Structures are given as C-alpha cells and as structure tokens.
C-alpha cells in the first residue's frame, strides 16, 4: 500500500491548528528506595490502589501498597534506570492494555507493546487489566461445547464455552500440547484465542508461536508473552492482560478461549512481589491473597446472557505440579476455583498413552450439558467401561485364568485405550470422534490387533470421508446420532470391516 503524503499532511495540519494545549495537573511523589522491581515513594497522597503511575523516564508502575507515609510501587519495565530521588507522577488511570481486532495474529507483552517485529499495534481502544467479572444475572449456563479436538477430552471431560477447565500435571506431560491442540481446533469456528505465556522460556514461546503460525492458527490468536527473563511484575499482570484482550471480543458477542500457561509461575511472581513489599508470608510463603489473585482472574471466564450478546470466555489455566503433588497450596486453590480438571500423569505419558490423561481423576463439572447429543450417546458409558477395564486389568495381572467373557471385555478395553491415543497437532472433528468411539465401543475393532488400532482408525476416517461423506455431513450438521444416521453408520462400519478382512 502506498500512502498519499499530502493527505496525511493535511490531517496533521488540521490537528495542529485545532490543538489547544491544556495545563496538566498531576500528583507527584519521589522515589526513596528502589530495587528488585519495586520502588517506595513519598508523596502521591491521592494515589489509588492499582493506579498506573509514571516515572520520570517514562517507565510505568502500578500502585501496589498504600501505606501511611509512602506508596509501594511495582515497576513494569526496567527498574535499573530508576534512581532514588526520581519523580513519580500519578496518571489517574487504571493500568490498561490496548485491545482490538488489530491484535489478532500479534505477539505482545502484557502492556500491549509488540514483540514480533511487525510494527506498532494499530488500535486506539484500550481496556483496564482488572475488570469486575460478570455477575450472576449477566450469565447463562454453560451449554455450548468448545471442541478441543482431542477424543479423550471431548468424550469424557467435555469443555463448554464459558467454562474454566484446569490442565494440571508434572513437567513434560503434555499440558501445553493439549492447550495448543485446542487452539488449533478452533480454526473456522469463530472462536478467538488468547495464549498467555507467563514465566516461560522465550524459546518455548517462540516454538508455540511457530506451530500456531504453521497451522494457520495465528489468524485468530493473540499471544501475550511474559518470559522468565521479564521482571516479576510483568509476569504477574500477564494473565490479567490476556483476560482483558479476550473480554473485548466477548462483550462484542464473540466466543473466546484463553489459555493461561502457567498460573503456578504467576503465583511465584506474585509471591516475589508481595515478599519484597513486606506483605506477611503465609503457607509456602505465598501471601494470603494469592487465592484472590487466581479467583478474580478465573471468575472472568463467563458465558454472557443474551442481552449482553451471548459471548463467552473459556479459560484453560495450566498448573504445573511437583512429583504429582496435587495437595500443594496453588494446585488445591486452582482446582477448587475451576469447573473441573484434566489430570496428566508422567507414568501414562511414558507408557505411550498420549495425551496422558488420567481418566479416573479428570472431571468436568459443567461440560456434560455442553456435549453434542451424538457424543453424549456414544461416550455415555465410556468412563465406566474404562474404569471397569482398569479393575479387570489389575486383576488379570495376577495370572488367573479368565472366563471367555471377561477376556473379551479386557480385549475391548485394550483397544479403547489405544483408540483414545492421539498424535500431537492432530485435532479431530467431533463427527470423526463419534465414529471412532462408536466403532470401538460396539466392537468393530475387536478383530484388529492392538498395535494396529491407530493405523486402522486412520484408515476408517479416510474411508468414511471418501465413501460415506453424506453420512458424515449429516452427522456434522445435526450433531445427533439419529436412528437413521446410526443405521447408515453401522452399514458403513460393516463395509469397512469386510474390506479390512479381505485385505488381510
């Protein structure tokens, strides 16, 4: 695009002619102590809690502690450039972040400054980081599904739009992978995604962005990045910035998905800040209000009522545990705040069951209402069947001879476990999931050797898509397994089985 210089000049000229500079009044204070990302200031007697302040070199700060004779300020930027005796100015504004369509496809820091080298963010709208969550009357129950594209989740721990589902697990168990797959699966669904990276290595953030870009997911995604090298205050505000970005779209009636990756690092950053501010430490040295820190963030995930446009914000917070310890302070807090959790286990991961979801412990408290009818029908008993299979499996390990019936149940269990495995970056449409789970549960895979199940499943999807596309289209459109569709599906599966038999 070429710009017309004279047009721009005329706009600027007009603006200068109309300009009437106003006298600016501001409350000022002086820095008396600075270090470790925080400053103590005198003056600023009218500063509000959470107000944005400006240091004399342009760095921004946040009024964090209001004490009798001084104000504790967290510095959002380079604190090494701030000296004792510097002036601090109140702005009368709350800390806010630029929002708008222009941010889609961009990677920004929590203050909205671009980090991707694609030039300035072209937007004039902004939104406060802290925003009161919608009240009871402003909401409606969670009832629309948010498809993750992962069979094990959509079938057994379904997530609804407006829900908060925690992804919890040890390091290297595929927590981020689930979140990324979910973002990838939102392609062409109109769901706007915000990925908040908090306290992670810059290289892993770059990796995530690259994957999103390669899969065409950056068109509807905003990445908010606070790396582990960023000061603690920046890491602390990152999730709130992400929530504000999503809220902008939500209040326009759109559906949004926010991933907070991860909240345990944010809690650690908040602990650092609080201890430096001399707030008294509590359990595990976290301050007393670390629960509030997470609850007010996650409470902003909501399904709005029709009058407010019916938009939604689904939150997928991630928590990293140490050695599977879910009873530590932060994990228990966040488990109690969210509407369910997806629990990932390293043992399963190393056994090759990926995603390594522990089906027994993972729950979704509200997602059941949000499941499509078709999925509800086929996956209704899946959880129980798998639990029974686990029990039998443990029993079978004793080496006792089994009845024929029991052996059959066991064999089907092995195949179901195999069927729930899914490669990374390969989200499946819910119709395909229904077909696969239906086939597995009704025994159409019983003759397939266990190590061939995944391959056969792939062939089945191919078969359905090419030869029974009209049935699949119906399933996609109606999202219900009517008797008519079920009959067609049975016929298709029998044809597929016959073909498989003839091949071998």
């Amino acid at each position: 695009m070429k710009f017309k210089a004279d047009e721009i000049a005329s706009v600027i000229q007009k603006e200068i002619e109309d300009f009437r500079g106003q006298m600016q009044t501001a409350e000022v204070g002086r820095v008396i102590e600075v270090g470790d990302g925080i400053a103590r200031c005198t003056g600023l007697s009218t500063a509000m809690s959470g107000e944005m302040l400006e240091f004399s070199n342009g760095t921004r700060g946040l009024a964090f502690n209001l004490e009798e004779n001084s104000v504790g300020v967290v510095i959002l930027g380079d604190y090494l450039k701030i000296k004792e005796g510097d002036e601090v100015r109140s702005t009368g504004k709350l800390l806010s972040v630029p929002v708008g369509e222009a941010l889609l496809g961009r990677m920004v820091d929590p203050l909205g400054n671009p980090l991707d080298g694609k030039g300035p963010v072209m937007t004039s709208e902004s939104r406060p980081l802290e925003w009161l969550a919608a009240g009871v009357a402003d909401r409606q129950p969670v009832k629309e599904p948010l498809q993750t594209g992962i069979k094990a989740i959509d079938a057994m721990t379904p997530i609804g739009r407006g829900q908060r589902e925690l992804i919890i697990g040890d390091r290297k168990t595929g927590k981020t992978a689930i979140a990324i797959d979910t973002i990838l699966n939102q392609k062409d669904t109109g769901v706007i995604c915000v990925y908040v990276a908090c306290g992670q290595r810059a290289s892993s953030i770059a990796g995530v962005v690259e994957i999103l870009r390669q899969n065409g997911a950056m068109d509807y995604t905003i990445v908010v990045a606070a790396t582990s090298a960023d000061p603690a205050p920046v890491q602390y505000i990152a999730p709130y910035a992400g929530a504000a970005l999503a809220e902008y779209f939500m209040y326009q009636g759109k559906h949004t998905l926010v991933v907070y990756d991860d909240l345990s690092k944010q809690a650690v950053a908040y602990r650092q800040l609080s201890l430096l501010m001399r707030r008294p430490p509590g359990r595990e040295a976290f301050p007393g209000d670390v629960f509030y820190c997470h609850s007010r963030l996650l409470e902003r995930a909501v399904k709005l009522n029709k009058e407010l446009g019916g938009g939604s914000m689904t939150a997928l917070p991630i928590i990293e545990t140490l050695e599977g310890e879910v009873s530590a302070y932060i994990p228990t807090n966040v488990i109690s705040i969210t509407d369910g959790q997806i629990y990932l286990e390293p043992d399963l991961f190393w056994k090759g069951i990926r995603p390594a979801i522990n089906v027994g412990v993972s729950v979704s408290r509200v997602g059941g209402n949000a499941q499509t009818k078709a999925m509800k029908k086929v996956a209704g008993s899946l959880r129980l069947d798998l639990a029974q299979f686990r029990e039998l499996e443990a029993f079978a390990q004793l080496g006792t001879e089994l009845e024929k019936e029991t052996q059959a149940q066991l064999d089907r269990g092995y195949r179901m476990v195999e069927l729930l495995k899914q490669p990374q970056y390969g989200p499946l449409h819910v119709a395909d999931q229904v077909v696969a789970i239906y086939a597995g549960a009704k025994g159409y895979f019983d003759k397939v050797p266990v190590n061939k199940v995944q391959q056969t499943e792939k062939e089945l999807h191919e078969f359905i898509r090419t030869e029974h596309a009209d049935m699949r289209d119906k399933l996609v459109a109606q999202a219900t397994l009517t008797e008519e569709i079920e009959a067609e599906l049975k016929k298709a599966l029998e044809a597929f089985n016959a073909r498989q038999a003839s091949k071998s």
Partner: protein
Amino acid sequence: MSEVRLKTRPDSVLEDPGALAVATLYARSYLAGATQNGIAAPEEELNSLLDDVLAAHPEFSELLMSDSLRRDNKLAIVDRVIAPGSSEYFTNFLRVLIRHNRVELLPMIRQVLVRVQEEAAGKKRVRVKTAKPLSDGSRSKIREQLTSKFGFDPILQESVDESLIGGLVLQVGDTVYDSSLRSRLKQLKGRLVEKALNEIQSGRDRFSHPEGD
C-alpha cells in the same frame, strides 16, 4: 569524636517518611504549645541548642542522641545542664522527646518547624521551574496569580530547566501544574498519533493510491 561528620548524600535520598511524619507532629505541637503559653519566638531556643551547643560539642550531641545512656540519666543531664539556662517550656519539650526516645529527631524537627511556621502564617512554598530565569515582572505576576487563585502567600523557589523549552511548571505541595512547552508538545504528539491511527483505520483508501502498490 572530633572529626566533622561528612555529608554523604543529598537530603532527599533515603529519607524516612515515617520519621518525617513524627517530626511534623512534634513541630506542630511545639508551636501550638508555644502560642498558648505566649512564647514569642520558640524556634530561637531550638536553634541555639542545635547550633551553639550540639554542633559545637559533638560528644555531647552523641551522648544525647545515642543509646549509650539510659533515659533517666539523659533526663538528669538535661535537668543539670540545660534547664538552668533555658525556659521551662523548652526544657519540658526536651524531656518529652527524651521520654519517647525521639531526641534524634531534633534536627528534623527544626527543619519542619520552619515550614510549619510558614504555614501558620498563611504562606506556602511553591516550586517554580522555567526554561529561562524569571524576570522581576513575571515573578510578581506569578505571585499575584497564585495569591488570588489559592489564597495563600507563596514563597517561590525558582529553578531553571532548559529541557522545558518554554512555559512554566508549578508545584504546590504534591500537586504539579505543568504548562510547559515540553508537555504540550508531548500531548500534541500523542494526539497526532491517535488521530493518524483513527484516520488510517477508518479510511485506508483515503491515504492509499487507488491503483495499489
């Protein structure tokens, strides 16, 4: 203890806002009490103690301010040394300070006392920052304006900062009134950027050539 205490930092640095608040309270009470008792110039005795006695005899000052002596002993010293030569009111003030372990605030109380007295007399300090030194005419004009707007008698503390380019920055207490050219230019810049962004977003066609790149 005869060496002179070196001044290693400017006054503003590492000041303790809590101590300042306490010193202000003491200064105010001292002044209020003095007015009630009809003492004309209460600051004279304080100044004389600090300048003629404590500054001249650092050992004595050290003795009084440090924790090496017990409170009773300090009180006894005040009774024997200071009480005969000074007014009853001032000696009592010192006794109160010693009883509350606040003697080390004496220099700060003196500093604050000046400001408290000014306030009591309806005066207030106003910092004036300009790009060039003020002329007599503009100085009296500023003073006039301030008196009519705020209703106090301003004491101007002038300083020159060339980076302001022009105009004037006033600071009364914690509040800054900034009408310098520098901040106006900054405002203008912000507004131009915002305007340009709006224009570009609202009418991309207006700025671009119809035939494209």
